[in-house]
């Protein structure tokens, strides 16, 4: 019941609306109840409403409003990229992006792979059924 993800300096958040949709940003300072000063290695530091952010579990160690160099170093030290890509949430997003960027040939290859996988699973199932029967 208690809260686990807090808005704090160093909290990594995902942008869920607007121009920077899908980006991971770091909350670098809090302006007021609805807005945070937000920074990422590839964008100018700017303000963002909390409604556009979804907090993640990842938090890095920074002081209030670090300069870009310190921020990038802290992101490396906290290993944010790997933590994100190995988390179930991050993996899901990567898979979604991959699926959205498939062309027809890729979808054909996937269809063949699915059929093959289903065939192997069905063989194993038939084997198990024969043993118990």
């Amino acid at each position, binding site marked *: 019941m208690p*809260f686990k*993800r*807090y*808005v*704090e*300096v160093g909290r990594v958040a995902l942008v*869920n*609306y607007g121009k920077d*949709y899908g980006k991971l940003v770091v909350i670098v*300072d*809090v*302006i*007021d109840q609805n807005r945070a*000063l937000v920074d990422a290695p590839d964008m*100018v*530091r*700017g*303000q963002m409403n*909390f*409604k556009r952010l*979804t*907090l993640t579990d990842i938090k890095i160690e920074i*002081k*209030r*409003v670090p300069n870009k160099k310190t921020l990038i170093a802290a992101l490396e030290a906290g290993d944010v990229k790997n933590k994100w890509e190995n988390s179930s949430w991050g993996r899901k997003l990567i898979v979604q992006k991959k699926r959205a960027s498939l062309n027809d040939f890729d979808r054909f290859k996937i269809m063949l792979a699915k059929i093959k996988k289903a065939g192997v699973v069905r063989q194993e199932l038939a084997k198990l059924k024969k043993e118990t029967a």
Partner: protein
Amino acid sequence: MSYKFHQFQVVGRALPTESDEHPKIYRMKLWATNEVRAKSKFWYYLRKLKKVKKSNGQMLAINEIFEKNPTTIKNYGIWLRYQSRTGYHNMYKEYRDTTLNGSIEQMYTEMASRHRVRHHCIQVIKTATIPAKLCKRESTKQFHNSKIKFPLVFKKVRPPTRKLKTTYKASRPNLFV
């Protein structure tokens, strides 16, 4: 971030006459949505302060003033004079924002919502960047905490673009974080 109110520096003076070859030049910093309105506002204020009108004056310069450091958070104090239904009042308001234009916009919207005062009934007397020690309002002082930490209690999940908005949903939303 596009702001409705832009800050302008307007410079003007009365037209030179035989009795006054070099009239005094006056400079004002004011907020308006565009340049035309800024010039008009300039003459409005100048008329109230000096014996000069647009017809016997000339505009010397109008420049837009941009924020020097739009990536740092500042506490802005705004002194204003507004007209309510019963008379004129002075007010001092504090805002936390990255730019002065943003805080002025916050001020106008707050005055409209809290006091039903429309934008044309508000005159900005003075604005200043206030250091954290001198802030007077609790609502700005509560954010002067280097280890600020709070949870987001109410989470409404929105579709990521306006196009994906639907009127009806299949299930009730889960609003917990």
